[in-house]
């Protein structure tokens, strides 16, 4: 049953192209949101024997919902005839299992979301998606090293929290418009790179990882929510972070949160913590 703008693009015969994306799901209600340039075509096979759902992009968002007739594991296949026409892609919260395909050809894409599914293995590179302003891959099972987003210089929101990423966090210093950054609840380690160039940063959540150090002058002055609790910061790192917030207190918001608590982080030098609390009286400052 096609609820969209039917095109009659069949998939019969031996010429069936490989789908762009093929995943399985146990969620009996699929809701996807797509935006493609006007005239661009795409279609779904929901894997339950219903007819192929074919759509034509309008240049605006299109919401597509499919209801399965009963419980089961279904294979969803998506064909997009010209990936360069993808402007926004959202398959979040559909209990999808599998791996993400490469979005490298989606060079016009401004927003990507695949949150709250069960995607696994490595996250593919989005380096060619240089127009991205928002990126959500949170609450999945991605693992391995995080690819660089340094070329995605227009990013405003970027979150990858609650996955199984490991290794070092690549630099986001070129993403100077970042306002929200979240990488908490992963297995990142090593040195947290500097976010000082991200002058629009308002929310930073990096807790529940294994960071042991940070780059000096790491944080933009406007950030009012800073969480790096439950990491592996040694005494030098904890003291240095508190000192940075103390010396830069004049340029920071009147109220905010600085959280360095958790057993993995070192207990700061008392005088250093006291100085930070005195410098930022409107802030909630928590340490181990």
């Amino acid at each position: 049953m096609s609820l969209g703008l039917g095109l009659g693009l069949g998939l019969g015969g031996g010429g069936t192209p490989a789908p762009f994306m093929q995943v399985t799901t146990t969620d009996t209600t699929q809701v996807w949101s797509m935006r493609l340039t006007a005239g661009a075509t795409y279609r779904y096979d929901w894997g339950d024997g219903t007819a192929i759902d074919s759509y034509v992009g309008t240049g605006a968002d299109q919401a597509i919902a499919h209801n399965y007739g009963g419980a089961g594991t279904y294979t969803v296949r998506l064909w997009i005839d010209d990936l360069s026409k993808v402007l926004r892609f959202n398959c979040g919260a559909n209990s999808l299992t599998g791996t993400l395909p490469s979005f490298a050809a989606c060079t016009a894409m401004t927003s990507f979301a695949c949150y709250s599914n069960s995607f696994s293995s490595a996250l593919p590179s989005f380096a060619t998606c240089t127009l991205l302003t928002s990126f959500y891959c949170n609450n999945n099972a991605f693992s391995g090293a995080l690819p660089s987003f340094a070329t995605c210089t227009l990013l405003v929101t970027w979150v990858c929290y609650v996955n199984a990423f490991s290794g070092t966090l690549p630099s986001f210093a070129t993403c100077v418009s970042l306002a929200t950054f979240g990488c908490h609840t992963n297995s990142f380690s090593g040195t947290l790179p500097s976010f000082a160039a991200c002058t629009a940063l308002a929310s930073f959540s990096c807790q529940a990882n294994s960071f042991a150090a940070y780059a000096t002058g790491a944080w933009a002055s406007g950030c009012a929510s800073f969480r790096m609790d439950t990491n592996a910061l040694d005494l030098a790192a904890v003291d240095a972070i508190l000192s940075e917030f103390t010396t830069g207190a004049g340029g920071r918001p009147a109220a905010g949160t600085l959280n360095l608590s958790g057993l993995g982080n070192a207990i700061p030098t008392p005088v250093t913590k006291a100085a930070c609390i005195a410098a930022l009286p409107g802030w909630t400052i928590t340490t181990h």
Partner: protein
Amino acid sequence: MRRFAIKDINGRTLGTGVQGDYGAYVDWRPDASESDQTPVMAALKARKPIPGCVWLEPDAWQDGSDGRAVQDGSKEYLAEYERGAKDRVIIGKTDASVADGRSLPGES
């Protein structure tokens, strides 16, 4: 197959759609924000029947920066939907904004 329209409180159409037993399709206007879309998407996810006309109040939806507020808001919307759904529904933050038969600009 049922057809529906989604409008802002001034009667400006934000999107149109169809809904049937097998699913739904919503054609959003270019200026429909993610905040506009979120409660409707929540209703589709919950397989709620969309009334013929859905009115969205300004700032009815707070799109959380990390997604959590959206989930919380979805519950709020669904609760209001249950109370207000008849042939149309107004989506807002407060009980008072739920459809209660009051006259709305642009309502036919």
